[in-house]
């Protein structure tokens, strides 16, 4: 009998979360902050409150799983104007962005 079944779940969840994100160099984090505000901002707004693209505020994204958001950024969404950014953003970049978006994106 496992003494703490919830602990395993918690650990597994922890592994699924974007842990590498923390390891991004500060300079890259700053680049990505600017990238999201400027390039994503064309459609989603500089303040990420949405436009032709959907709102990307923490409130608007709170029910969306991180994995879905990562996949959307990397591969785009068919049937919408959202393109895939994988050629320009690494997996670690994308995970950092999603993590930051869910927390409330830095200025």
């Amino acid at each position, binding site marked *: 009998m496992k003494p703490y079944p919830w602990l395993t779940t918690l650990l597994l969840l922890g592994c699924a979360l974007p842990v590498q994100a923390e390891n991004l160099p500060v300079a890259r984090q700053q680049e990505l902050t600017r990238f999201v505000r400027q*390039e994503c901002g064309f459609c989603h707004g500089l303040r990420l409150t949405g436009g032709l693209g959907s709102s990307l505020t923490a409130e608007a994204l709170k029910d969306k799983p991180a994995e879905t958001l990562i996949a959307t950024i990397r591969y785009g969404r068919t049937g919408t104007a959202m393109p895939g950014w994988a050629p320009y953003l690494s997996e670690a970049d994308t995970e950092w962005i999603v993590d930051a978006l869910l927390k409330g994106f830095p200025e």
Partner: protein
Amino acid sequence: MTSRKVLLIFLACVVLVFPTFAQELRGTGDLGLIVERAKGSIQLIDTTKHTLLQRVEGLGDTSHASAVFSRDTRYAYVFGRDGGLTKVDLLTGKIVKRVLQSGNSIGGAISQDGRFIAAANYVPGGVKIFDSETLEQVADIPAYSDATQALSRVVGLEDSFGNRFAFSLFDAGEIWLADLSEDPRHPKLTQYKNIGNQPYDALVTPDGRWYVAGLYGEDGMAVLDLWHPEKGVRRVLREYGRGEQKLPVYKMPHLETWAASGNLVFIPGVGRHEVVLVDISTWQLVGRIPVAGQPVFVMSDPTGRRLWVNFAFPDYDTVQVIDVESRSIIHTLKPGKAVLHMEFTPRGEQVWISVRDANRVDIYDTTTFKKLGELPVDAPSGIFFSARANRFGL
């Protein structure tokens, strides 16, 4: 009265009267504004002297802000992303009036007679009409589509003759025409359904006759003849690019009233790195010119002889110039990262180009391509000259 008192009164008079003397009389035909997209501000500019006159702050979220001008070219109406509509006096640099008219807006237009300002809104979805004098709301047109049973985001709001505004419903795939000529408080609406999937922007030709909506969700365009609106919306260029793999679009292209010359209109190929030439008399595709990336603005200079094209990420450091007659690229410029907009002086001898990441607006001679000057502007995006007041669809 002591002589000291007399002197004080005299000085007070001088101080009070002096500004009238100091303020030189001037016209507004060579003025304009540049949007500072990150600061919530605009810079007022003089296109003759190549100077920044003044920064005007407090315009809210100015990312993707655009402007139209009053018919006396004294006032600019700036549409902000936060739904703000701000009336700015170009002569004094003061905000005359500001209203928050919606949750999320992207652009607008001014009526033929100059009496009404129309704002296109994403949230809640619709068009609002304002008195251009007072910015009081005159009419509200929610873009509720029976087909989708929902409000739609509105794009491609353009003005035309007869005090009419045409606009497209991005989510519903419809074009609506609002006629303010009889009763501005109750605009007469004509709705055209099933005009195509995801109209993303529109233009009207400089004569105000043709309203052309570009489609993102499928190939082709939707065209409405404003001489004969009873004939309905026509779909054109449906075969364009069929069977070809689309390239990713990292920024939505714009359609511009400038992009017309003689019988031709010039359209950015969506998902294709080319400029498309369409003959208005037949609505047939008559040429495709390969360019450096996904075109965003394809702008004809006022002589109609050349097109200036800028591009979406990642090719947005480049501007290409196309000779219309030979349909070839005759010049490529690299102003720097993030060229967001270009604006010609009214007769086209210069073009002003905003270079966002360089915090700079460059001024080029359109004949020699020589750089004439540059101005420091914080993250510049849209450039709008007051001469737009006298044109349809800008």
